């Protein structure tokens, strides 16, 4: 028994991502649901149509989640199937690999999104299409951010190898409390609000709620979301190239999957 315990103990202590994974899952869950509970306890009359707003935000968040995880999955599947080396010795530029993954991730996300949208109407009498033409911009913004997170996590996989996998699964949960998906930003403590304002998510979800509740559009939110997306997307691409070169120096590419 002790031997088996040691086998897992050694595995965990030799990998920082695994240690991090143990710590932040409970922290994130408690933080997220704490803010949600706190908001509903103090603002019970805020929403006239709480189910509609929450479901719409849930669908938007799910799209983001699926885009990001979908991108990571494509990368991880190559590692799990031990096909990673084959892929990186094929005559493809890094840009070509990224573009193909970005397009595939979009198709995967849409496959998951369409049934969810179709189900909400008959089940709850709610249509996400109530967001109007700005729905497209919100989805586009979420898609870009989801892809950005996917590229950032894939950079980590390239640089640190498969032990970074757990981070891939939990990135979205890490960001969820700051994304203000189910509650307005003023629910957050001031210090968290500063972090939230640095993410495009808060502008996207604030705007979704604004359209549904106030029936008007604040174009500034859409604009800020796109500007921040452009910044993070650029950083993610730079980081991916950096990680690829670092992996070539460190040897991660040839040992991936081991």
């Amino acid at each position, binding site marked *: 028994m002790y031997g088996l315990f040691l086998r897992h103990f050694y595995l965990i202590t030799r990998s920082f991502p695994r240690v991090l994974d143990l710590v932040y899952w409970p922290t994130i869950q408690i933080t997220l649901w704490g803010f949600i509970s706190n908001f509903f306890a103090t603002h019970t009359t805020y929403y006239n149509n709480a189910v509609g707003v929450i479901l719409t935000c849930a669908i938007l968040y799910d799209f983001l989640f699926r885009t990001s995880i979908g991108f990571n999955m494509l990368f991880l599947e190559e590692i799990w199937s031990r096909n*990673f080396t*084959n892929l990186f010795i094929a005559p493809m530029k890094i840009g070509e690999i990224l573009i193909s993954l970005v397009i595939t991730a979009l198709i995967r996300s849409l496959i998951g999104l369409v049934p969810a949208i179709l189900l909400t109407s008959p089940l709850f009498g709610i249509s996400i299409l109530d967001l109007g033409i700005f729905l497209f911009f919100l989805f586009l913004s979420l898609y870009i951010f989801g892809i950005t997170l996917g590229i950032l996590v894939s950079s980590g996989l390239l640089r640190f190898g498969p032990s970074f996998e757990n981070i891939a699964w939990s990135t979205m949960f890490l960001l969820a409390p700051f994304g203000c998906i189910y509650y307005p930003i003023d629910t957050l403590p001031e210090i968290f609000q500063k972090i939230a304002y640095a993410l495009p998510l808060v502008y996207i979800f604030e705007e979704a709620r604004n359209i549904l509740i106030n029936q008007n559009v604040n174009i500034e939110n859409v604009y800020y979301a796109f500007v921040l997306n452009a910044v993070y997307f650029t950083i993610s691409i730079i980081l991916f190239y950096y990680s690829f070169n670092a992996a070539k120096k460190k040897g991660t590419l040839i040992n991936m999957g*081991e």
Partner: protein
Amino acid sequence: MKNLIEVKNIKKNYGKKEAVKGISFNVQENEILGLLGPNGSGKTTTIGMLLGLLKPTSGQIFINDLKLEDNRIKILEIINFISPYIELPKKLTVKQNLYVYSKLYKVQNIKERIEYLSEKLRIAELLDSITGELSSGQKNRVSLAKALINEPRVLLLDEPTASLDPEVGDFVRTFLEEYKKEKKISILLASHNMNEVTRLCKSVLMMKNGEIIDKGKPQDLIDKHGRNNLEEVFLKLSRSKNELN
């Protein structure tokens, strides 16, 4: 004969550890060069550098007269690799895998190429099978088909017959001999199977601790070291070095 692979004084350090300590060698057209050495001697690191998966700390690599550092994509179009440590996606059929790699390598006549390789490697009846459900020998032949899909001029083989039964191993070795002769390609073969190396390789490099400690034709090395076969030469060189250390 033209050198298709030219390696000039390449070194690879991982931090303070010197994995490859300045080795140089060439592989000509229509030649199979054996790369021998105990585990950790630097063989895989050397192959990784030739594939552009590892950046040498110093030194230069030329493939078909092109400098690898500046022409990675062009070189990857004419090179390929097989190793038992990498696999094709298990859930795809054999045909789907070969088709995917044909597209990645921009093969022109995909159907004809797959048909040709299927016939040569006796995998025609496996084309609709799920790759993950194949036996080791079948997977090996499918991987070889993938490695030849782009008609490579340079083929890097890392333990190509490891874990194969003698019949399949012999089939693969015979195939490689004939294919090399027919296409005049260069092959770098890393193997622990000394009989295989003796049979296939015109010359061999013996590596240990990141260095080339001896090189020559298999029979010349056997004669030089006064041994009966290449395995005995391998053991002698490995052990004598250890004693020195």
